[in-house]
């Protein structure tokens, strides 16, 4: 029974300012840090491409199913985000270990020849983020103080 109510003058003025700013709506990326490599840039893709993110794609289980290469990509190109955190967690699950001095991931290739409190030494596989590939390194010393 309240019926219509005409807008008062002050509300009409408010509406004009609101309407003007309506054409410059905030985007989610306006509230997010600038990403060094992969800034959020919505691009119109053909409608038959999946337009929504895959279900559960923000879960650890999803990241565990990603290939090692993909996990390295996420780790190095999405730094400071939850994706990097989940990728690191998944890599560790695959017994990769992060070296905080070389900032690279290492994985034992075989049982180390020497193991003591400070370090282990032997043959390792590591991921070289500059040459973007996995390499084998013999006689490498992994000092535990650099184990993240």
């Amino acid at each position: 029974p309240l019926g219509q109510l005409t807008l008062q003058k002050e509300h009409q003025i408010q509406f004009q300012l609101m309407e003007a700013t309506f054409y410059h709506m905030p985007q989610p990326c306006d509230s997010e840090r600038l990403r060094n490599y992969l800034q959020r840039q919505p691009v119109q893709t053909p409608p038959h491409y999946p337009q929504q993110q895959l279900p559960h794609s923000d879960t650890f289980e999803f990241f565990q199913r990603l290939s090692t290469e993909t996990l390295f990509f996420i780790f190095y190109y999405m730094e400071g985000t939850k994706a990097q955190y989940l990728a690191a967690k998944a890599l560790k699950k695959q017994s990769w270990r992060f070296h905080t001095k070389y900032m690279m991931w290492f994985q034992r290739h075989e049982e180390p020849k020497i193991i003591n409190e400070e370090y282990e030494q032997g043959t390792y596989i590591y991921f070289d983020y500059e040459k973007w590939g996995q390499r084998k390194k013999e006689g490498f010393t992994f000092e535990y103080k650099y184990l993240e």
Partner: protein
Amino acid sequence: TDVVDTDGFAEKTEHLFRHWVYTYHNEMNGRDPVKYFGSFVNRMNFLGVLKGDEQLTKFFTIATKMCIEASYRNLADTTITQAIAKTKTYHWIDAYVRLIALLVRHSGDGSNSNTKLNLLNKVLGIVVGILLQDQEQLHGANFQQFGYQRIFIMLFLELSAHDAILENISVGVVTAFCHTYHMLRPANAPGFCYAWLELISNRVFLGRILAMIPQQKGWFMYSQLLIDLFKYLAPFLRNAELAKPVTVLYKGTLRVLLVLLHDFPEFLCDYHFGFCDVIPPNCIQMRNLILSAYPRNMRLPDPFTPNLKVSTLADITTPPRICTNYTAAIQPASFKKDLDSYLKQRAPVTFFAELKRNLQISNEPGSRYNIPLMNALVLYVGTQAIAHIRLKNQVPSKQTVASSAHMDIFQNLAVDSDNEGRYLFLNAIANQLRYPNSHTHYFSCTLLYLFHETNSEAIQEQITRVLLERLIVNRPHPWGLLITFIELIKNPEYEFWKHDFVHCAPEIEKLFESVARSCM
């Protein structure tokens, strides 16, 4: 106020600020950012920026204006896309914000929060002043919100970083931002309203103010921000047709409320009363959303359970927490005194004339009544009635709510009001039909009692309308609303199906039957 450049201060500031932006993007990402910050502060000091309050104010005013001018300049640059214009602008603003955050963090000694928070409030106040001046005088309808939004959100994120000193001032930081956002509420800065909603619903801000501040100290502040939003939206939502800019802001509000309903239902439970006071009565679904909240540790019995005995439910005698001082709305004090006296002595009858005089504030159809007073009065009388019933060791029921000073007032409001007044009165009751608690129970009995006792079919129809309009909108529906309506249509005592208005139109009849079927 505009900065008067006396001794080349502006030029020095501009040079200093450019140097900082360069430092930030080229040195600060290294291993020892604080080292660079330390040498920059020495530069500021050398140039007299830290000499006193006035110089510091000038510095921040000029630096903020440089960032905002960059935002307009970049956006006006037709050779680049909007995305690149924003990225270029943020290149400046993110550096500026980092400087502010470092100055806040390192000012005063580690334990002295006041120095830090005073500096933060100063800077926030300067940005607010520039924004309001920009919107009102400089750019008007061409006002651009994104530069200001960036300053606020990135400063909040910087000051929310995991850092022992910042953790120490986190409540002060959240409080400072709440004051700032209240000063920039949409009614004050309509051109900033979308950015404002982004800011108050930012995931980090929500986490801080609603989850991380101990003892829910942030809840009241946040409720005030939502009330600012509802007050702004109210005139635009009061009519059925929404203009596109309003629809977008309204849907954005619904998203925020859904997150609150899902993650912080107790917050909506505690502040529902203040929210319903400012949400227009015709804004049914948004109000239902708020009234549907219930404590997470509570299990709601299925309202359609056959022979559900509401009075035997465990929580039904527990009074709900209401964090709004609703009795303060019962003004003037003389009226409150007369109300209390009537409740005590059930006299004098002249009180009802005073009641009507206080509730009616204009003759303008559609806004004749003081809605906050109506809501407060109904809730106050109801809580007094519950206490009165409990004093007699009874529980609310059709019998125990009857013939009392409290019910006199409700029946007077039902019988003696016009359509509009009665609609608002019945809404005030229906707003209490929420999750199982003593208010839901009492007001459910009261509404059913009013339906049963009245000899006016118009009143019965209006009670049905008030319930129905809340039920036919999309979900969610408050539990108390459902159990009241189910009781009304199921219990033969109310002779619901005999009323003509139930059969007034085929689709209405079908709707009642579909609800009845789901009950059976």
